[in-house]
């Protein structure tokens, strides 16, 4: 039971207004009364939501509680964003995808920092990074870590020295490894793959999907520890880059690395990565359905192999901006020979859980709908208004799918 919060059951009329207000899912109405669970973090957000004043707090004043929860010590501490040098380097071997992700994470940090009234520090190692791009994307300052040893150890040591409010990175590629490694060395908690970050006072409350996106969790760092967060690309806000922005570049010399951690060998991504053959980005052509972030599905209503083939063209276009894209097909489309059997979605129990599923001319048999049930955002393009599939779609375009495909290919995405 939270010590400083309680529901006054004589005042509670069970209206439930507090339930959605709680960011930690700690409130529920049971048998006509609100119940406060163990998971309450005493953030105070629920207090003003209660029309009858039934949420009792030890401090009496809800706003004071919320403000105090971050602890005075973090005032003025900046939010760090780890950016791999290579991601934004002049040579940028990692290519457009990684660069966009790195900038996206800065964009998110920028909006959090604005809300909290603090600074954003872009942290990088080595001198590969294009600092001008970091400032343009929202960094107030750039720290370049310098020293002997591997990047995670350098980052962990720098965190110990500078005590930022939080350390953020992209949940992909080198950043994912470096941030996780640094968290391990710092003995800090890491919220990996967060797709939503809210602010409560100076506290960051990241949410992340679990169990294939079927549940969402809030993770709390033990008191006094600096949280590390890696971000799923879903969270990125569109970045407003401003090339006129500048700031200070600081070279942080790190001596002796975090604690007694051995540094026998260099972690991957630190120097060793560049030596390998063909280090440039390799675009995958055949992304399996269950690994794709975007799935384009085609069904009978497309009417012809030619119309279906437009899906592959759209997939190529989208993969340039949106990561891995796979093309799937209904049973009818496979039977018609428009798509290979590997593309079959219906009834194959392929566990697709893409961020986006765009269906073109799909009428939505139960077998098909079950196969794509875990998609985050669903678009249905069909001229058949009665299509079963429209019932599960977030966006419906009531037009002939082939025509919409042609239009989509005409616009720049």
């Amino acid at each position, binding site marked *: 039971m939270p010590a400083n919060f309680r529901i006054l059951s004589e005042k509670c009329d069970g209206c439930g207004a507090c339930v959605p207000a709680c960011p930690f899912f700690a409130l529920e109405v049971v048998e006509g009364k609100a119940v406060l669970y163990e998971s309450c973090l005493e953030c105070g957000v629920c207090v003003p939501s209660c029309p009858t004043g039934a949420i009792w707090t030890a401090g009496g004043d809800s706003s004071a509680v919320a403000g105090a929860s971050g602890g005075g010590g973090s005032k003025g501490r900046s939010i760090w964003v780890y950016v791999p040098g290579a991601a934004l380097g002049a040579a940028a071997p990692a290519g457009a995808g990684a660069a966009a992700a790195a900038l996206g994470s800065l964009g998110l940090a920028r909006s959090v920092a604005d809300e909290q009234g603090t600074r954003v520090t872009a942290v990088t190692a080595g001198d590969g990074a294009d600092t001008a791009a970091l400032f343009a994307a929202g960094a107030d300052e750039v720290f370049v870590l310098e020293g002997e040893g591997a990047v995670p150890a350098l980052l962990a040591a720098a965190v110990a020295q500078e005590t930022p409010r939080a350390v953020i990175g992209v949940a992909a590629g080198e950043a994912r490894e470096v941030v996780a490694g640094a968290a391990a060395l710092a003995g800090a908690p890491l919220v990996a793959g967060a797709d939503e970050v809210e602010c409560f006072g100076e506290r960051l409350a990241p949410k992340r999907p679990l169990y294939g996106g079927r549940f969402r969790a809030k993770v709390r760092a033990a008191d006094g520890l600096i949280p590390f967060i890696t971000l799923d690309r879903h969270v990125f806000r569109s970045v407003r880059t401003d090339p006129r922005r500048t700031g200070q570049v600081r070279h942080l010399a790190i001596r002796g690395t975090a604690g007694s951690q051995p540094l026998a060998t260099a972690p991957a991504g630190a120097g060793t990565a560049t030596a390998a053959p063909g280090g440039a980005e390799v675009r995958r052509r055949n992304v399996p359905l269950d690994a794709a972030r975007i799935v384009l599905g085609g069904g009978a209503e497309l009417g012809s192999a030619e119309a279906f083939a437009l899906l592959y063209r759209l997939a190529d276009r989208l993969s340039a901006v949106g990561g891995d894209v796979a093309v799937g097909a209904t*049973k009818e489309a496979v039977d018609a020979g428009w798509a290979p*059997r590997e593309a*079959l979605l219906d*009834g*194959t*129990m392929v566990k697709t859980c893409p961020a986006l599923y765009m269906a073109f001319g799909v009428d939505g048999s*139960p*077998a098909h*709908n*079950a196969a794509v049930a875990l998609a985050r955002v669903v678009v249905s393009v069909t001229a058949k208004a009665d299509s*079963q599939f429209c019932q599960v779609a977030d966006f419906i375009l009531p037009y002939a799918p082939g025509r919409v495909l042609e239009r989509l290919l005409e616009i720049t995405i």
Partner: protein
Amino acid sequence: MDFTIPQEYEILRKMVHDFVVERLDPISQKVEEEDEIPPEIIKEMAELGFFGLPFPEEYGGGAVSKLGYALFLEELGASSACFSNLIAPHVSLATSSVFIGGTEAQKQKYLPPMCAGEKLGAFALTEPNAGSDAANIETRAEKKGDKWILNGTKNWITNGSIADVVIVYALTDKNLRARGGITAFIVEKGFPGFRVGTVDVKMGLRGSHTAQLLFENCEVPEENVLGEVGMGFLTAMKVLDGGRIGLAAGAVGGAQRLLELSIQWANTRVQFGQPIANNQAIQWMLADMAMEIEAARLMTYKTAWKYDQGLKITRDAAMVKAFASEMACHVADKAVQIHGGIGYMREYPIERAYRDTRILKIYEGTNEIQRMIIARDLLKVGH
């Protein structure tokens, strides 16, 4: 009483489940259209040990108990029936005949390639004039020197047209018949005088073939008498007892799949402005299906358990065979009903399952024969 399924069988079950979902279900419709299981899938099943599961390791088997075998067929039965109709007659009937009735030398020679799926087996008992009345077979075997000469016709033999090894039950003493006059022979493809007749066109079970087998002065070497002369009928009855558990297990698995498809359909099909699952008429059908499936499942597991304990199972096996096959037919009928018109259409697996299920009440002893066995035992034992 402990209903926990042993860990190794949970692993086995999940493996088969994954195999069904990933490898078999996607090709079921194609098999239905082409009436042929792709050879590469048969090879994969062989490599995974599907063809030898209940036999000891020293013969290349999987050393799986009857319970494990039942759980295996329950999972396999969820897919198109042709797959279990490839495996079960080979394992439960043909290979079991060698294991139960064969000499040590025969086991050493035939079991390893049969367990490995290199040699496919068939079990040939039924004849034009001997179906339910199996003791009435007319295929004769006569000793000529060091060979036996077989003459006669076997009907509707599953895997008969593709088998490498056929266990043929023939009359060696007309007067003794079931009481020592029937002998089983191991006939290999290519033995002189053995050929495959017509391959049957059936109501269902596409992808599984039954055929007429013709024996015209077919020469069988002495060492291919399965076990001893005159022991054939006893072997056949023992083999069929065990086989019934497998049949019931497959019926349970198939029915469970139909129930799941029906639930899914009932939840998504909207009529009168709401999913049809909201109607009590549909709910009761689903409840009835689930009750019958569960009863058949428990009977199957219990009979398998008794078999593994070495207890006599003749009555239990007859009961579970008849009960599970009738359950499967009830469930298939309700599944079609819940699906409405789509349940009658070739494009959807419900229609196929409805046709495939019907055979369960006929082969491996008709349900009337099962009731005869049950009643005979009841009247003899008195309870």
